[in-house]
């Protein structure tokens, strides 16, 4: 027996906005019969392009129905800008709470909303991005990473509760653990996103990293480093203090400074010394 909040029970037994809007502006369909839950969300825009009406159809358990009902109530009256900021946590909050094992129901709601908005904007249906990690439920590494990041998940069980990955045969548990580790450790996967850094952001991040991470370490040995310029992905620096005369300075530059910058800024960086 699940411990459902009164609000979940209410939205399950008296769901709001059941149905389909025939001339909908946006349609989002997620989930499948095989997965055990599915949601079809339709919305209609009104004045000022705010969501005037939203309806849902859901196949699933009580919390899936309640999450869908809550979602339609939440988004009514919102502009699309506002609606696209709705997270699964907003749905959970609206319902009071959801049992941990049922969090994926709120994620389903968020996913349907995203799809419906994309559908309205005429964006072609989102391709499956990333690589499939969980074969049983067809969950990709990017979806898992997102759930970990947004909900601060730390165990395989958490990941299963939120996005179902790992809830079937269990063969992907090792891979999920790797993803969790990399997200919580040095976040090497964040690099991919930083490719979109603008020049100014990149330079700022390099400066910060130098100041916060690298300079203090060098100063311990009486050395220092100065940023001269950033040309594309080439970081031009000048070594100071003891570093300037140290025979191992090239090793420091490549093995330490460049590694650190690649890790924390972007993997494309090359560090060169200005003579």
């Amino acid at each position, binding site marked *: 027996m699940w411990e459902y909040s009164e609000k979940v029970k209410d939205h399950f037994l008296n769901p709001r906005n059941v149905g389909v809007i025939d001339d909908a502006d946006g349609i989002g369909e997620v989930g499948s019969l095989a997965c055990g839950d599915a949601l079809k969300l339709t919305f209609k825009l009104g004045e000022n392009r705010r969501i005037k009406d939203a309806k849902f159809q859901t*196949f699933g358990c009580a919390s899936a129905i309640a999450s869908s009902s809550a979602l339609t109530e939440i988004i009514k009256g919102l502009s699309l800008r506002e609606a696209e900021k709705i997270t699964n946590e907003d749905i959970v909050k609206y319902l009071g709470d959801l049992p941990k094992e049922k969090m994926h129901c709120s994620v389903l709601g968020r996913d349907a909303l995203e799809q419906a908005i994309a559908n309205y904007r005429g964006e072609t249906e989102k391709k499956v991005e990333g690589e499939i990690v969980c074969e049983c439920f067809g969950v990709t590494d990017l979806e898992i990473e997102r759930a970990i990041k947004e909900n601060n998940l730390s165990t395989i069980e958490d990941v299963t509760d939120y996005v179902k990955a790992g809830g079937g045969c269990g063969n992907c548990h090792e891979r999920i653990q790797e993803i969790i580790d990399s997200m919580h450790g040095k976040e090497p996967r964040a690099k991919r996103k930083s490719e979109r850094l603008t020049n100014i952001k990149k330079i700022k991040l390099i400066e910060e990293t130098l100041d916060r991470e690298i300079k203090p370490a060098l100063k311990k040995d009486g050395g220092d480093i100065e940023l001269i310029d950033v040309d594309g992905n080439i970081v031009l620096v000048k070594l100071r203090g003891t570093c300037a005369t140290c025979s191992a300075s090239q090793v420091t530059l490549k093995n330490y400074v460049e590694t650190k910058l690649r890790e924390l800024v972007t993997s494309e960086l090359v560090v060169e010394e200005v003579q």
Partner: protein
Amino acid sequence: MNVIYVDNNATTMVAPEVLDEMLPYFNEFYGNPSSMHTFGGNVGRKIREAREKVAIILGAAPEEIVFTSCGTESDSTAIRAAVLSNPDKKHIITTRVEHPAVKNLCEYFSKNGFRVTFVPVDRKGRLDIDYLYENLTDDTAIVSIMWANNESGTIFPIEELSKTVKEREIVFHTDAVQTIGKIPIDVSKTGVDMLSLSGHKLHGPKGIGVLYIRKGTKFSPFIIGGHQEGGRRGGTENVASIIGIGKAFELAKEHLVKENTRVKNLRDKLETEILKRIPNTIINGDPENRLPNTTNISFEYVEGESILLMMDEFGICASSGSACTSGSLEPSHVLRAMGVPFTAAHGSIRFSLSIYNTEEEIDFIIEKLPPIIERLREMSPFWDESKMTG
């Protein structure tokens, strides 16, 4: 609100007669049956009587009965005993539809140096008997096959199977937890070496089980301790519950006919009316060979937990093989093994009746269920689609 309890394969009400027998053994006759004094000795006598009652319902001898703490302990004891007393054999045969008590133990063995064959079932849950026979080898330590399935109610031909397996001198164990009291069992007419039972599935208390061990079967205790149960299961006896299970099985023997007439008729009425009143429903299980109290029905395009919770609003208690009810994400392994399509597996409901159910209760369910299914289908995106595609 009245409770309408049709979840008797999960557990049952303790019969009033059973409770009456048990109560004095908590604070009136609380002696240890192993003691030398009369106060304890009298308790020992009651345990002997209980053992005899259990033996009678099985067609066994009292010394072949060992009391355990539950059906799971009986299953674990039986399979471990067979494995331990046949150290040179590294193969186990079981089915794909066993209760977790057997399934998960066998999976454990398969990860620890054993080869395990899981015999498949067909769409009605019937066992692939040829597959079983083809896989018997000289390396097989034990064959463990449930007598009847708890979810579908499908009964396996244990008399026939156990005899054939016996001819190969392989230990045969059966989990008869759901079967006892519902169909006649006479171990003397089978090749069964070990058989597991539980008290709470048949109006006895929870926390008590039975393991039948045929005389001459090589055995090794799971719980090693005192001399209790002839050295086959250590630990001071769960006196009140042993007396309770004895009484429960005595009653069960008397009620066997009622289970197969009155209870069966109620089950049939429930099933027939549901099929008649609700479209797109499927019976899971073998109507020809099924426990008289069980029906497992799939309502296509809706999800089981939602059905259960809506029935709960009317006090109706049943079970589902859907993913959501178990906390796991996949529907029951039994329905999957039977190849029940996903459209139906998630929306499966098991009704399991008992002699305490009345016709009024069944009529109440028949009245309340159709609008629940209709309402959930109205909410389901797949119901629309299924109507469109015909």
